[in-house]
């Protein structure tokens, strides 16, 4: 039975993550896809690194956001860069779109999971090709799906309910950013590994842009924050 998990001597598999990124939130909007993620890299409970870029572009048509182990994300970017390079080398008018990249990542993540050596990430992959918008997610065990709005980690619990209520087709860019900022603000209040420095990335048919890092305005004087246990004695 031990052989199935790999012997201790030559074991070279991910056991637990070290430097991790927290949630990524993504939505489709009128012209394409918007992704938001903060720039924090936590080392356990320490908010160690504060300029980690967790949103990157992939080829001409896609963007990727990663949460989880940052070094594994860097490895994934190396795989993707190689994939895009070979795709470009064909030089034949065909190019890998977001759906293809998403499915490639799904294959990689699932394969690694089967070998008990996962890439410890949850990824959001979005893009636009030939007018078709695409937004999907892949987790470290290979679970994958597409939707109009996706999130990783805490974002699933805190951001998606907001998105379910407030997302609609044909959000403008400004509305989309406002909605994402609302989600990120809630995450900032409630997720202890969130840092107040975020970027928003956009991809449309025209191309990719990513904002400069900026901070959200926060308000800490809510009565609920001051007296959290009013109405629920014993809670925190």
């Amino acid at each position, binding site marked *: 039975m031990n052989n199935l998990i790999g012997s201790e001597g030559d074991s070279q598999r991910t056991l637990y993550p070290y430097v991790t990124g927290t949630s990524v939130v993504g939505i489709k909007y009128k012209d394409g896809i918007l992704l938001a993620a903060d720039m924090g890299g936590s080392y356990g409970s320490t908010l160690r690194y504060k300029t980690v870029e967790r949103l990157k572009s992939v080829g001409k048509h896609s963007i990727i956001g990663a949460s989880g182990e940052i070094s594994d994300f860097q490895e994934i970017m190396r795989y993707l860069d190689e994939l895009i390079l070979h795709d470009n080398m*064909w030089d*034949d*008018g*065909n*190019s*890998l*779109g977001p*759906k*293809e990249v998403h*499915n*490639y990542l799904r*294959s990689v993540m699932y394969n690694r999971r089967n070998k008990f050596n996962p890439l410890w990430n949850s990824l959001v992959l979005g893009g636009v090709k*030939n007018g078709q918008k695409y937004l999907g997610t892949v987790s470290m065990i290979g679970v994958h799906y597409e939707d109009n709005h996706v999130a990783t980690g805490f974002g699933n619990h805190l951001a998606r309910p907001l998105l379910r209520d407030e997302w609609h087709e044909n959000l403008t860019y400004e509305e989309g950013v406002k909605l994402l900022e609302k989600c990120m603000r809630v995450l900032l209040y409630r997720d202890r590994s969130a840092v107040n420095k975020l970027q928003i990335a956009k991809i449309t048919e025209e191309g990719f842009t990513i904002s400069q890092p900026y901070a959200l305005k926060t308000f800490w004087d809510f009565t609920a924050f001051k007296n959290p246990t009013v109405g629920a004695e014993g809670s925190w």
Partner: protein
Amino acid sequence: MRSKSHVVLASVNKANSELSSHQKKIFKVDDHIGVAIAGLTADGRVLSRYMRNECINYSYTYESPLPVGRLVVQLADKAQVCTQRSWKRPYGIGLLVGGLDESGAHLYYNCPSGNYFEYQAFAIGSRSQAAKTYLERKFETFMDSSRENLIKDALFALRETLQGEKLTSSICTIAVMGIGEAFHVLDQETVKTLISEFEIVGEEPPADAPDQGSVAEPAPADQGTPADQSASPMDI
């Protein structure tokens, strides 16, 4: 031959004797790619299996059809290896590969030498010269031809190779693929109807006129409207 949106492959199947069945020369490789072979059909089977494998693997990883241009290059590289290793022999077949990719419909011819060329129309095998002569006269009309006229032209080209023998649906095979239409071989009934339609007319079909009379076509999607749509990206 091919138009902007369709490829038609046609072959003559003469059985050895009344008792035996005829050789299968046209193979479906994927929904969007088909191949017709001439030469050592055993080698043809092996290469068809290789092509089907490549298509399936690509589809599995990327959930997207393999662009025919890339398949053709992989096939050509495989053939080239056999020309450079002393212990191998070249594949004894010429392949006409028809398929769709992002930029529309394509027709390629792969040689045993490892060369491949893209064609508007081509003929291979014994007595192909007669067909080539016909195609050389008519090829300029193919790009904008409707699906029906393309099939009719294929039947006419086939007739040229028979040198006076009657063209019946039992000795020929026609396969069609197009944007929105998966590769399929037309059944005998349909071919019979098409043959009788142009034999009644008794002359070559007009270059680009719409069909006279309705013909029961097997494929529901693309109808008799002339394919003068500008090269639309494939609906992947």
